[in-house]
């Protein structure tokens, strides 16, 4: 049970650190919301009646064992599952109270406002500069000065400007995994999205790179709303404000991270976060 205690102790610590600020700074604003969301892969019922609110300028962690639907749910938030075949969705998902599946928002516009960082760092086989300028360019940003500025700001924001400034025009594929992932995050924030979805962004990285990405996520939430899928309980407890626990396509429990980790209401949640299965 010592692992169990360690997790809880950590959760207490982090909430103690960040708790104050969230309490006094702002009232919770809902940025994205899913209501009665159901998703089928062919005949397989992958998400069952999901109801969840993603709070603005907070980090929401989605946890649960493999195949529980947490990544699938994340992808419904920017309609990446449109690209897969045989997926049917009913229910409602909103961004700022606009229905993203049935409203006037196209998937393209939606993804420009809700960006995504993937499990495997996936820089395009282009230079670092072109990777980061990619998003602004497809939105019609022209002019070297403007792009230069965006590239610099984005790289500064993810904390690798000093490392990258002399090799901006070299291929992004020559970077380490951790650097690649931060370039990918910079690429995502270069277009100033409102929400950033992170799909296990550190699972391919070493512990030190992981720590850096976590610090970055905490910094980024000041400006952006973040939803992150993670396998790592410590990570969820360290960085998130809210946690959602998924199991077999169902949302078992959702609430403040400190509540989920310290006083889980559901037995399954408790068993999972203390490492009894998963």
């Amino acid at each position, binding site marked *: 049970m010592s692992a169990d205690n360690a997790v809880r102790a950590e959760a207490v610590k982090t909430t103690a650190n960040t708790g104050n600020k969230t309490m006094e700074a702002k009232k919770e604003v809902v940025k994205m919301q899913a209501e009665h969301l159901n998703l089928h892969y062919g005949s397989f019922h992958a998400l069952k009646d999901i109801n969840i609110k993603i709070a603005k300028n907070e980090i929401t962690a989605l946890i649960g064992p493999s195949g529980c639907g947490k990544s699938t749910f994340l992808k419904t938030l920017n309609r990446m599952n449109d690209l897969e075949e045989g997926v049917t969705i009913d229910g409602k998902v909103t961004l*700022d109270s*606009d229905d993203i599946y049935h409203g*006037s*928002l*196209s998937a*393209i*516009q939606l993804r420009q406002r809700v960006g995504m960082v993937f499990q495997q760092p996936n820089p395009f086989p282009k230079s670092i500069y072109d990777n980061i300028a990619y998003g602004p360019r*497809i939105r019609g940003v022209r002019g070297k000065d403007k792009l230069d500025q965006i590239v610099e700001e984005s790289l500064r924001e993810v904390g690798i400007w000093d490392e990258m400034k002399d090799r901006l025009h070299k291929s992004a594929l020559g970077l380490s995994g951790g650097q690649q992932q931060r370039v990918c995050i910079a690429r995502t924030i270069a277009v100033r999205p409102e929400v950033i979805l992170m799909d296990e962004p550190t699972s391919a990285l070493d512990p030190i790179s992981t720590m850096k990405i976590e610090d970055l996520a905490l910094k980024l939430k000041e400006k952006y709303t973040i939803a992150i899928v993670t396998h790592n309980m410590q990570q969820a407890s360290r960085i998130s404000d809210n946690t959602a626990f998924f199991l077999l396509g169902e949302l078992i429990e959702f609430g403040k991270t400190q509540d989920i980790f310290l006083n889980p209401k559901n037995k399954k949640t408790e068993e999972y976060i203390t490492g009894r299965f998963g």
Partner: protein
Amino acid sequence: MASESAAVLGSNNEEQKMREMKARAGRAIGVDNFMTGVFYVVAGFFLALLIALASYIIIKGFAGAKPYMFAFDSQGIGNQFWNTIYLVFLSLLISVPIGVMAGIYMALYAKKGRVATILRIAIETLSSLPSIVVGLFGYLVFIVMTGNSWNLFAGALAVSILSLPLIATTTEDAINMLPDSYTKGAFGMGATKRQVITTVLLPAATPHIITGVILAAGRGFGEAAALLYTAGMSTDLNWHMVSAATNPFNPFRPGETLALNIWALRTEALRADAAEMANLSSAILMILVLGFSLLAHTIERHMKKKSGV
């Protein structure tokens, strides 16, 4: 509406930005839809072109045909049809054993190192040789240097040079596609390398190799440039006397094929019905080629289904 909620949030500036973004995304989507349309048109165009071309050739060929054109004599193209089949058959007799063995060599004996590199370059060189160049080589070696006149066998040799790389590479691929466990299992039971190959790997790879052989045959039917100066552009078969030098099974006699016949008939001076004859030859060639191609596809699909279970 997104713009409404932006307006609620406040500044006009924000609203304008939102509207601009929407317009830009709209334009990008417009371009996307347009390009998708272009792709469908191009794909549709080629599908239509193939269907139109194939059916035009076949229909026109048979529509203009007279009964005498099917005869196995100097008036019809029966002899050319026989020569085409017989020549491809002979060429496969040569190229299949050598090609399959060479494929085995590539897949199991020379996997890495300098020999493998040289083999690969050799195969690529062979498969990119212009067929007219192979024809000239065949002419020099099988006709001029042996002192023979045009003959079917020389043509078959030239065609087998052209189909050799295809058969060798399909064999290599077929063997490489087999799971490692086949080899390991057989070796584990004390089989020699030869036994592993002949009793396990080759039988398992056979359907795939057959697809390659059928494709090679399909190409062989249509080959003409390599035969111009090897098989010759005349044929005179005696179907009644087996002992005659012109008996259909004697490979050492001139043997004009359907493809060569079309080339020979391009000048209408040859005979009054040249155009109709060439059309009919084209039609029969198309049927042969398409039939073999479809056969290969069917076998391949069948195999995929089987291995998919």
